[in-house]
């Protein structure tokens, strides 16, 4: 405990906690929507797109990579979430195609045009997060706070509309809801969260932040509101526990948080099983 208090005196640890909590909260809220719409894998696909965009930004020597990464990820999210009835390549196939394509091109570009002396380190930290969350600058923390606040406000203010579009898009459309607009908003929010979460767990592990809290909540609760609340609490607690363990034990931050997510899901599953008997 003394060690933890000592570590909390470091500004970068406090920044990491703030950003980690915000990312966990936002990702869990949207996670429920994505899981219910059978878009669980979209986080993975978009994170690979973000990796590809990061590679391009690195090659271009951009100091603020978010300037490029965020718009590219948003555009990809919009393309992926667009109603796909008339598309020749649909749903999961499209996600897989964009995902592996972006990953391959990203790594290829970094290999061919890398300006870094530690290519494997750059790739590794982008894919697995490394200690990125502990090396954030003040401006990055503020950017994260502002974007998270926007996502949270949108989620709260548009709760009813997102709920309607999530459960029955056709019905929502029939009663006059502009589903296209709300799909676009959801897509933008997903992209923003993916870009932010790359700092926390890296691009390969982002899906865990989206899927595990929602699935854990769904094991225990059935109502949409309760699932949303439990999912948020679960995600924030697990993220804090993961970060604390990581800082104290010197383990990789991203994989520790995801491991805590898996254990948390296991506990929820066990609780649900025991309760049902």
């Amino acid at each position, binding site marked *: 405990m003394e060690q933890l208090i000592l*570590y909390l005196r*470091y500004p*970068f*640890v406090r920044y990491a906690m703030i950003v980690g909590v915000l990312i966990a909260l936002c990702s869990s809220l949207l996670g429920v929507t994505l899981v219910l719409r059978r878009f669980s894998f979209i986080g993975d696909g978009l994170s690979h797109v973000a990796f590809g965009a990061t590679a391009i930004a690195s090659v271009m020597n951009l*100091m603020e990579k978010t300037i490029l990464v965020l718009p590219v990820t948003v555009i990809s999210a919009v393309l992926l979430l667009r109603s796909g009835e008339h598309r020749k390549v649909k749903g999961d196939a499209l996600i897989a195609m964009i995902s592996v394509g972006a990953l391959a091109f990203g790594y290829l570009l970094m290999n061919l045009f890398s300006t*870094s*002396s*530690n290519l*494997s*380190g750059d790739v*590794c*930290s982008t894919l*697995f997060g*490394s*200690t990125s969350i*502990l*090396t954030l*600058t003040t401006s990055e923390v503020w950017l994260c706070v502002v974007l998270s606040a926007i996502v949270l406000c949108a989620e709260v203010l548009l709760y009813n509309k997102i709920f309607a579009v999530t459960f029955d898009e056709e019905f929502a459309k029939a009663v006059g809801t502009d589903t296209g607009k709300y799909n676009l908003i959801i897509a933008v929010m997903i992209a923003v969260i993916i870009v932010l979460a790359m700092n926390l767990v890296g691009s390969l592990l982002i899906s865990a932040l989206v899927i595990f809290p929602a699935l854990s909540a769904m094991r225990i609760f059935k109502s949409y509101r309760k699932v949303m609340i439990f999912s948020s609490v679960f995600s924030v607690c697990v993220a804090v526990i993961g970060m604390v363990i*990581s*800082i*104290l*034990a*010197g*383990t*990789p*931050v991203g994989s520790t948080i995801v491991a805590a997510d898996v254990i948390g899901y296991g506990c929820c599953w066990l609780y649900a099983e025991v309760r049902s008997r």
Partner: protein
Amino acid sequence: MRLKPLIYTAVLSLLFAGCAPRYGANIQVDTSGSGIGQVLEERMEEETKVKEVSEAEVHSTALASTSYDLVDVDLTGLSSTMVYAEVYNIVMNPDEYMGKVICMDGMYTEFYNEALDVWYFSCIIQDALACCAQGIEFVLTEDYIYPENYPTEGDYIIVTGIFDRYEENGFPYYTLREAVLSEA
């Protein structure tokens, strides 16, 4: 523009981690006139071949006439994740640590710059994924004779020194001056 020197510092640190050659039989010493070079030159002039250095000699603290009772930034008790983040912080915000006594532990590595004919010594720590590394250069006190009293590359070391800045070829670099090694 201010970021440029920091980038060079970071790149140099990474170079130490990834590209530092092991010294062989033909060790050359610094003759460029920089601080470390002068010390090494004086101590190495009579040396004609590399001597085998025992572990006891490498980590001997009896060599150091300098000692630090008060350490401003002690990284030795921190977890590897914390050390990596704090060293990153030092490298990115060096002005905040100028003149402070820093104690750190990590892997000893050395780097010979052929163009400048200068040896550099640094303490490297790796992140939890072991794919990234951060390091701080140090200059040991004159009590340490190279290579007898220097560690072998890859050794675990504890080094304490005063964080300072110097310029080389017009670029700023950061180092722990008047550094001493402690018992591991």
